């Protein structure tokens, strides 16, 4: 019955391959744009936050607390209070956010690299 059927429409395989290649290229293109955008934005974010951290540290007086023992070595005996003062003035939240953005940057660059090393984009 069906074994003898021979009215197969020509070009079926090629049509499917073309259609899927097109969809795959579109998907790769969208991923490439997304990863590039994320990496650029996160790079900008890292620069901004590092600048912000330095500003925050200088405003909070953490640098002064760090430099105190260099002026007067006897202050070392109060090391616990000194460390607490530094910790209080240190912008931990901004530092955490910077680390998160740095992670995002590394992740997007890694994915972008994988995406670029895949088969050549034919758009």
């Amino acid at each position, binding site marked *: 019955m069906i074994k003898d*059927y021979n009215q*197969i429409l020509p070009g*079926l*395989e090629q049509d*499917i391959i073309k*259609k*899927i290649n097109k*969809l795959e290229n579109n998907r790769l293109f969208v991923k490439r744009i997304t990863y590039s955008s994320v990496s650029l934005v996160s790079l900008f974010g890292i620069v901004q936050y590092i600048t912000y951290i330095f500003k925050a540290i200088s405003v909070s007086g953490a640098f002064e607390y760090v430099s105190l023992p260099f002026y007067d070595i006897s202050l070392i005996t109060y090391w616990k209070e000194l460390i607490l003062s530094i910790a209080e003035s240190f912008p931990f939240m901004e530092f955490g956010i910077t680390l998160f953005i740095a992670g995002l940057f590394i992740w997007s660059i890694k994915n972008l690299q994988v995406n670029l090393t895949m088969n050549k984009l034919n758009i």
Partner: protein
Amino acid sequence: MKSLTDVQLISSYLEGNREAFNGLINRYSQSLYKFTYYLVNNKEEAHDIVQESFIKVWKNIKKFDQTKSFKTWIFTITERTAIDFLRKRKNISFSSMDNDESENNFAQSVPDKEPMQDEIFERNENIELVNEVLNMIPIDLKVIMILRHGEEMTFEEIAKVVDKPVNTVKSQYRRTLFTLKEHINSRMHRNSQ
């Protein structure tokens, strides 16, 4: 590519080898086309359904359970795509054969006899007649007949594709075969007179 199994091709594709998916297309497009053509009776529509089915496979390939048969999976997707397509076209016939309890009167009205010889499907001179009679039966039974005779699937494989118990598939197959044979014999008898 031809020597690789379906699972090896899928793994290769998921590892980044885009050519591997073409191997799957090459392996299944023709048989899916034949299967779909028999369901919809239109070349262009069968072409579109097979293309759409492969796109669905491509989109869901990561979700495919590699411990299961790819063949039954792809036929399930194609069968559902074809049925959706026929529903949209609104000329699907299984609903008219089903009663309120979703039981099929066509299959149940035929006595459940001993397994029958299916030589009617093997004889070339019957092709046109078989096709004509096949178009008279409900779509769900037609799917079973095509998978059994076109793809030479086992009842277990067919049961997975149509998502029915194996015994139901066997029983529906036997009853449909009996009915088809009756129809064909009566037509042949009429033609010979």
